[in-house]
């Protein structure tokens, strides 16, 4: 049995839409609507989807930055919502760290590197100044930066180096899980590979779990063990990354893969590109039946009528489609 670190069961987050002076609730945005997943120890789960799919809301729920409408999150088998305030502070929050997308806005420009990286250590541990200084140097060396640069300010570093600083800060408390929100998409192409390789090395070294939010499928295939394809607040396909990429079953997964596939001009006849029509519907008023049916080329009558169930089609592989083959 796999070693499960964190499990999300049926997570739901609905935001109220209010109108008028008295803020009447006129509708609900179903940002996340019944999402379940497991993150194994030392493994990476990626949430993939277009903007508005609910990836970030899901990640924020895991980080406890967003209170769920319903659903449970189990951390090492224990229900997070049953943790007391002090238990969260000592047993959960230090174990979960966050690396944001944009390394230009995730750091205080007026703080020196030593203070940026030391901040989580100062607030969460009882280390003295000497220990903190040593730990900061060690962390910098771990992410491939010169420990002598601790007195520099963030603006003195390039994007790739800043992302390394953000990773160093996240690793300070020896977390079990790091949430990576689009970790490389703000970086230059030639720098992305450096950061992805670094993240993989750190994962092997410290047995870290990653929850990656991404829209670039190639990055996901390179980085992750498991993948969840999200559409309009729901997971439409879930499974082992290699299996999903080699044998995608959901029409949306197929379209996403086709859209991101490298097709050379001469190959075009062999690989038929799937181009979806239309855009993602509003999460305030999701389509009836299968939420993807309005854009699906394979949609039949029942797709607009009946809501498809999540069906298991392999060890981990699950798909939410009436016609999964």
């Amino acid at each position, binding site marked *: 049995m796999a070693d499960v670190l964190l499990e999300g069961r049926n997570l739901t987050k609905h935001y109220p839409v209010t109108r008028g002076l008295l803020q009447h609730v006129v509708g609900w945005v179903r940002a996340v609507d019944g999402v379940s997943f497991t993150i194994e120890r030392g493994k990476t789960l990626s949430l993939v989807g*277009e*903007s508005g799919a609910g990836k970030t809301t899901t990640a924020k729920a895991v980080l406890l930055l967003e209170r769920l409408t319903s659903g449970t999150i189990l951390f090492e088998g224990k229900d997070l919502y049953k943790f007391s305030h002090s238990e969260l502070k000592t047993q959960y929050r230090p174990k979960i760290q966050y690396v944001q997308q944009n390394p230009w806005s995730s750091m205080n420009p007026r703080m020196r590197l030593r203070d940026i990286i030391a901040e989580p250590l100062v607030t969460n541990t009882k280390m003295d100044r000497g220990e903190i200084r040593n730990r900061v140097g060690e962390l910098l060396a771990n992410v491939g930066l010169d420990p002598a640069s601790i007195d520099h300010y963030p603006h003195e570093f*390039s994007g*790739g180096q800043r992302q390394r600083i953000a990773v160093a800060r996240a690793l300070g408390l020896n977390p079990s899980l790091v949430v990576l929100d689009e970790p490389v998409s703000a970086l*230059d*192409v*030639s*720098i*992305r*590979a*450096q950061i*992805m*390789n670094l993240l*993989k090395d750190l994962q092997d070294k410290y047995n870290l779990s990653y929850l990656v939010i991404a*829209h*670039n*499928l*190639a*990055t996901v*295939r*390179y980085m992750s063990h498991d993948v969840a394809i999200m559409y309009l607040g729901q997971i439409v396909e879930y499974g082992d990354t*290699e299996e999903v*990429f080699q044998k995608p079953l959901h029409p949306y997964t197929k*379209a*996403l*893969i*086709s*859209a*991101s*596939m*490298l*097709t*050379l*001009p*001469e190959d075009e006849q062999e690989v038929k*590109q799937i*181009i*979806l*029509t239309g*855009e*993602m519907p509003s999460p305030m008023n999701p389509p009836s039946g299968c939420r993807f049916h309005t854009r699906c080329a394979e949609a039949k009558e029942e797709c607009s009528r009946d809501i498809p169930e999540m069906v298991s089609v392999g060890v981990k592989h699950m798909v939410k489609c009436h016609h999964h083959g």
Partner: protein
Amino acid sequence: MSEIVLQVENLHTSFFTNQGEVKAVDGISFFVRESETFGIVGESGCGKSVTALSIMRLLQEPGGRITGGKIILEGTDLVPLSKKKMRAYRGRMISMILQDPMSSLNPVYTVGNQIGESIRLHQALPENMVEPAIIESLRLLKIPTPETMLGNYPFQLSGGMRQRVVGAIAMSCRPRLLIADEPTTALDATIQAQYIALFEDIQKKTNVAIIFITHDFGVVAKMCHRVGVMYAGKIVETAPTREIFKAPQHPYTSALINSVPRLDRKDERLFSIEGQPPSLLNLPPGCRFAPRCTVARETCRQQEPPEVSVGADHTVSCWRVK
């Protein structure tokens, strides 16, 4: 072979700052034919957007200046043109699509108003012909129900639809050359695929020459016929798209292609280019890529490599290529 629409010869563009002259574009040459898409690929700061702004003559003044070279559009050199004369070209002969559709549209004017602006400015149409022309360009971009779209404001539209409106403005006067600077970067994957297919269709209908600026090799493969790879202000390799993927000659080109993870196979470990692009204020002597190049020799560090032709439409600047 179709006619050459734009020929850029030995273009130099510099920014004059307190720290000295920044040679953002340092002697690049390329051409674009009718109905052809030429891709310019490179990392940020390599000079690809400055190249676009130089062609549009939209460099920020004072500070930014074209210091040498020619930009020949259908026989006319744009570099010495007066500002007034240039205005007649911009929008009519050449137009541009920028990355972020939210900041390139005016939030307080309707879509119809913004498309009509360039039509009224450049085409001597009677007022009752303007609206049909606007609808025509919305149709060209396959915008559903163009008649109702006319009265919409940008905030009422999705990102993909906004970028189509930007495209409709750019195509409203049927330019000969369209410069698209990362037009799909801000869009979602499936919307990006729609947009690229749309432009292939528009090119077939109007024969427009397109310069497509991007950092994404996937987009290049789908969209471009030929591609130029830029590094630190220079084009290091120009080749037909197929050749650049099958047989890249410059070490930077192959490193860049290899450092992008592939969707069609599982990569065990990505090739990564060590170090960072050089500062344009302080360029290395010799080949600019030499400090990061794994196969650099002594000559590479001392002398700049000449551009050599290695096939039809394929040139490369590297000492290792003879």
